[in-house]
């Protein structure tokens, strides 16, 4: 018997596989996975390049209900190819979002939950991955007019590249302390800017700039949540109840650009200064 009151025994959402995350999120018995692994829809491109494929191509998509509200869920498996998106994986996410949009137009309000755990475009399928991410983004922009599109970044991989732009389009974006959000991953920045500017092995430094706590403090995400399944589920339900927001984060792009335009790039930036710049407050 497990003791539900002992925090050490409660499974962390961060440690779960994509399929376990979807199962846990939805009401018991309501999950209907589309294009399941048994449909064997693998990437046609990885094998040609000598890379072992995965039966679900690293993405789990399902329909179901969350507290009786119809939802679709797409979860990326960060362990497979760094959660990168190619033709099949990307089409699965775009397709499930388009299904939700169709359901909304036919009179069944259906929200979407995206568990983003991705390094971005899968380099072995570069152009097809880019096209798929563009399809995901236009599907989010269409669906968010009807129902909330809720993005979760819980870690351990984080959300980078084209999928970080996708995250910015969501109606609501939620993060845990373990999650990271950034356009370029730490190694890429180190290669471009030099180790003196950005040391990708300095984990406290990396998390202080791109981790969930910092992203929440700088207003780039809507909620900072705990790591257990019940905490994640409660945070998602909260967004679901708030409905379609009056203004989307991506509508305020002019103000964000103006803020960035004022940044003094002469001096090395740190977490405190980044926070001050993005919240327009003076550092203490």
């Amino acid at each position, binding site marked *: 018997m497990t003791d539900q009151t002992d925090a050490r025994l409660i499974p962390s959402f961060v440690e779960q596989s994509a399929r376990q995350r979807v199962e846990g999120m939805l009401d018991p018995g309501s999950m209907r996975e589309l294009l399941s692994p*048994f449909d064997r829809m693998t990437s046609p491109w990885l094998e040609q390049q000598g890379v*072992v*494929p995965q*039966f679900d191509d690293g993405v789990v998509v399902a329909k179901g209900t969350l507290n009786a509200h119809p939802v679709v869920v797409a979860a990326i498996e960060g362990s*497979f190819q760094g959660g990168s998106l190619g033709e099949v994986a990307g089409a699965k996410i775009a397709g499930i979002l388009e299904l939700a949009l169709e359901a909304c137009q036919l009179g069944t309000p259906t929200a979407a939950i995206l568990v983003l755990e991705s390094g971005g475009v899968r380099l072995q399928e570069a152009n097809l991955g880019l096209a798929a991410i563009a399809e995901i983004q236009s599907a989010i922009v269409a669906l968010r007019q009807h129902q909330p599109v809720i993005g979760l970044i819980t870690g351990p991989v984080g959300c980078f590249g084209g999928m970080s732009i996708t995250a910015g389009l969501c109606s609501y974006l939620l993060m845990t302390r373990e999650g990271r959000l950034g356009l370029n991953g730490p190694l890429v920045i180190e290669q471009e800017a030099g180790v003196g500017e950005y040391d990708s092995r300095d984990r406290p430094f990396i998390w202080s700039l791109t981790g969930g706590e910092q992203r929440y403090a700088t207003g780039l995400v809507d909620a900072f949540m705990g790591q257990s399944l019940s905490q994640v589920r409660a945070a998602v339900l909260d967004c679901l109840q708030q409905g379609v927001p009056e203004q989307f984060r991506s509508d305020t792009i002019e103000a964000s650009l103006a803020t960035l335009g004022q940044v003094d790039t002469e001096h090395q930036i740190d977490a405190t200064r980044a926070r001050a710049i993005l919240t327009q407050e003076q550092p203490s």
Partner: protein
Amino acid sequence: MDTLLFLRPARAVPLNRTLVGYVGSGDLEVMIDRTDGHQAEIHIRTSTQGSEARWQQLIERMEVDHPLPAMRMDIHDFAATPGVIRLRIEQALELALDNRGNTHD
């Protein structure tokens, strides 16, 4: 990447469709599906080249402890060690042969 196929004589028994593991570093996914035939078809894609003899031995040693059911087994291996491979295959067989049923039906 190597693609291997092993065909072994097997007994026909009721099976649950099963999937365990994932294609991450040092791990593998094992999928078991039903088949009409009377043999165990084991389809392997592995990132470890030149490992055919090792897989052959692993399957032969498994058969000593567990008579294989008639099935189609697919393995996607991403450089897992023999110990991990054996555990994953046993995990998949246990779920596939569990007569209390399985969620993947």
